[in-house]
């Protein structure tokens, strides 16, 4: 039986950040995940919170923190230090993120020709945080025949002022479809394949050259170039630098349908960082059961081909996601089950799981279902919170925390960051030295 100081269940943003933070502090961490986490779908921005008309993410965090049900009521104060840590970490890992809590919002155009309000973005989306200058144009460029990105359709949507929802916007939006070299012959072209092409310096030089000429042909004057989010996978920083240099303009990567290349980049560097810190990450591990005595989790078993694999743990972090992520399951009888420990969940009655226009983000009150915790993020019974934590050495992070309407509040990443920060700090403070010296402790490396 292998052992670890902490097992983190789930490999999304919250799980990986908790694991890295714990490993930075010297804990032996194993991440167990049923599949690849939601970062593989992510388009780049780190959402801390947004409300129409809000001046900054800090203001929204403050508003949400005053709502007793929202995780920020517990975590609000940790958003700033967690974000600071995340931005330093991401920079160290070669993926610097621009923006700040107090710096206000920008509008990031997307591959369906809409906009997404953003406050923290990877470098390749940083220009969206700057207001557009008078006369400045946006040129949307992409490969002709790449079915996930239609530059002219994107441009014609973004050319409508109402799409920008009151944000600063370009004077004019133009779309150009380009033939990037050698792609016409390729079948099954997806974002990942194009991103790998951009990692190749020779192909990249040729593609950027053709793109630069196509952009220049649309007219003169100040311009920003919007491209699908495919600017390299492993060598992204260099690809971006080359693009900016070749175009002589700011460059914006537009998020696409999954797979999300910006999210995969972040996943890959966090995974590599965790491994470099001695952590282990196992994908394809469905939790079979958890062993606990007297409110303390002692081991976690994952399903295997024949017999469960049991890992002895000093603490457990649940980063399994909410209803959308699979950490919670809604039964037809209206019960909401937490899948790993069977924790009592807080959520609306079945009559109010869904209501109204299904395309309205507010039509899914069930999204706010989750686990209630104490200040240390230990799970409590939502009906009897005063009775204290249900498990001494369990922490709940990310979208499994109750009270988030993440599609409405747009606070999902902020909760992930702050809860990772808080969970790591609280586990650090209570680390049980016994688990560190137990027999077999040297086994997990």
């Amino acid at each position: 039986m292998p052992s670890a100081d902490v097992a983190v269940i789930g490999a999304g943003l919250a799980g990986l950040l908790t694991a890295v933070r714990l490993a930075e502090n010297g804990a032996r961490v194993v991440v167990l995940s049923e599949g690849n986490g939601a970062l593989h779908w992510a388009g780049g921005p780190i959402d801390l919170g947004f409300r129409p008309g809000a001046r900054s993410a800090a203001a929204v965090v403050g508003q949400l923190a005053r709502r007793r049900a929202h995780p920020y009521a517990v975590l609000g104060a940790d958003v700033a230090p967690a974000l600071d840590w995340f931005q330093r970490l991401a920079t160290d890992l070669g993926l610097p993120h621009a923006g700040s809590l107090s710096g206000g919002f920008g509008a990031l155009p997307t591959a369906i020709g809409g906009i997404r309000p953003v406050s923290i973005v990877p470098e390749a989306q940083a220009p969206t945080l700057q207001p557009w200058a008078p006369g400045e144009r946006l040129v949307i460029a992409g490969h002709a025949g790449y079915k996930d990105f239609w530059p002219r359709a994107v441009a014609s949507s973004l050319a409508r002022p109402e799409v920008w929802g009151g944000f600063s916007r370009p004077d004019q939006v133009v779309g150009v479809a380009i033939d990037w070299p050698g792609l016409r012959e390729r079948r099954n072209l997806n974002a990942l394949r194009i991103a790998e092409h951009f990692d190749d310096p020779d192909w990249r030089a040729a593609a950027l050259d053709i793109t630069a000429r196509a952009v220049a042909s649309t007219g003169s004057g100040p311009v920003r170039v919007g491209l699908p989010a495919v600017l390299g996978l492993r060598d992204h920083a260099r690809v971006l630098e080359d693009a900016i240099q070749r175009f002589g303009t700011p460059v914006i990567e537009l998020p696409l349908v999954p797979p999300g290349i910006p999210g995969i980049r972040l996943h890959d560097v966090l995974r590599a960082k965790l491994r470099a810190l001695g952590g282990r990450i196992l994908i394809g591990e469905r939790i079979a059961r958890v062993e606990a005595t007297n409110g303390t989790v002692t081991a976690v078993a994952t399903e295997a081909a024949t017999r469960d694999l049991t890992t002895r743990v000093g603490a457990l972090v649940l980063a399994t996601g909410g209803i959308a992520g699979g950490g919670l399951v809604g039964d037809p009888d209206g019960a909401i089950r937490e899948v790993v420990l069977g924790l009592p969940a807080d959520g609306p009655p079945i009559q109010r799981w869904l209501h109204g226009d299904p395309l309205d983000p507010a039509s899914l009150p069930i999204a706010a279902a989750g686990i209630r915790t104490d200040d240390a993020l230990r799970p409590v019974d939502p009906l009897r919170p005063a009775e204290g934590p249900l498990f001494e050495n369990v922490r709940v992070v990310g979208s499994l925390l109750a009270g988030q309407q993440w599609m409405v509040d747009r606070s999902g990443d902020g909760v992930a960051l702050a809860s990772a920060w808080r969970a790591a700090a609280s586990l650090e403070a209570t680390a049980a030295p016994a688990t560190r010296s137990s027999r077999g402790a040297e086994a997990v490396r």
Partner: protein
Amino acid sequence: MTIASVVEAALHETVGLSTDECLKCNICNEVCPVARVDDRFPGPKYVGPQAQRFRLAAPVPINLDGRPVHSPDRTVDWCSGCGWCTTACPAGVKIAEVNNRARASMRAGHRPRLRDWLISQTDLLGRFGAPFTPLANWTLQNRPVRWLLELVLGIHRKAPLPLYAGRSFRSRFKRRGGVLGRVGEVDLPPPDRAVVYFHGCAANYYEQHVADAAIAVLERNGFQVIAPPQNCCGLPMISNGLYPAARSKARHNVEVLAEYARLGYRIVGTSTSCTHTLKAEYAEMLDLHDEDARAVSAATWDICEFLLELHEEGRLDTGFGRIDLDLPYHAPCQLRSHGIGLPAMDLFALIPGLRAVDMDHDCCGIAGTYGLKKEKYDNAMRVGEDLFRRIDASGAAETACDSETCRWQIASATDRPSRHPVEYLAAAYAAADATGTADGTAH
């Protein structure tokens, strides 16, 4: 087909119906090593969950009774079967298994291609080749012969084929008085003092040093080794869509091994792909759900999994001598399908001086017999390219891996030996015994 039989079939049908859970999220396409290198393969999502709607539209919704179920095209044949799609799927869809069954359906009712049939006959090739080891090895290493093999059969001339090791493990084991019989034919030590060894074809005919190392390590820890009659686990046939042949191999193995399993003996194997086949694929791929098959599955252990469990129980002799070595380790795809973590890495950590590094690469490319095929060899080499490059760059003298075909692929591509983890454990025990002469090499 009666309603009851449909219900009964559906109860076992955890593979085909799992596609219901597919969200079309593309994560499987993104992790697929073959789609990464070959456009002719549209990716696991397209040939798996998406093509499944055509297969489900067939008159019999699931291919349990051997009837062919139609795929929209033949591209599923480019799948190497590495299983990464199933591992990475966040929704629990058994994509690789769906694809494998689709390939078998495509092949059902047709005579198999001679090449595919031949490379699946690992038993036969071993039995006929071993007595003629010098000649066979000369043939396998002879360039014109290999060129001819490629031309006539379609086995790539550069594909890594193993060399025969002379007399089989079984005949040598017999000569030194090893227990080879079935239950009832031989005197047996109690089940807590002995294990059944599933050596597979590789250790029997090509890599007897692996079998020797396994036996040394098991005996060191107080287990007598029994090697009952066994044939190929059937995996090469499953991979090539030859289910009926695989089933007959499986039935024979199950019949013999179940006798031991029911008496409480554990079945330990050094080939991580054979042990996974005994554990999971007899049920998932070949629909063997009877009590005997279940007993064999429950009793089967990969050797590193078994040794780590001994360690957990405090029963593993940890008196390992020093081996000063940098050791890149590749975890084979089949090991990941076991879901047992990285037991070899945990065991390596017990050997003083051994600096093992998990290479964290998806697939070496070979995928059993995939990389042997003329039309698939290039894919296999490109899938493993990054692994080979990093091993080269590491400057390490040798590498470790739990699966034989991966070892042959990695050794051939990096031009340095690749060994089974248990060989290092055996060497570390030997180093401890040869006090004062620990020279830090593993052989």
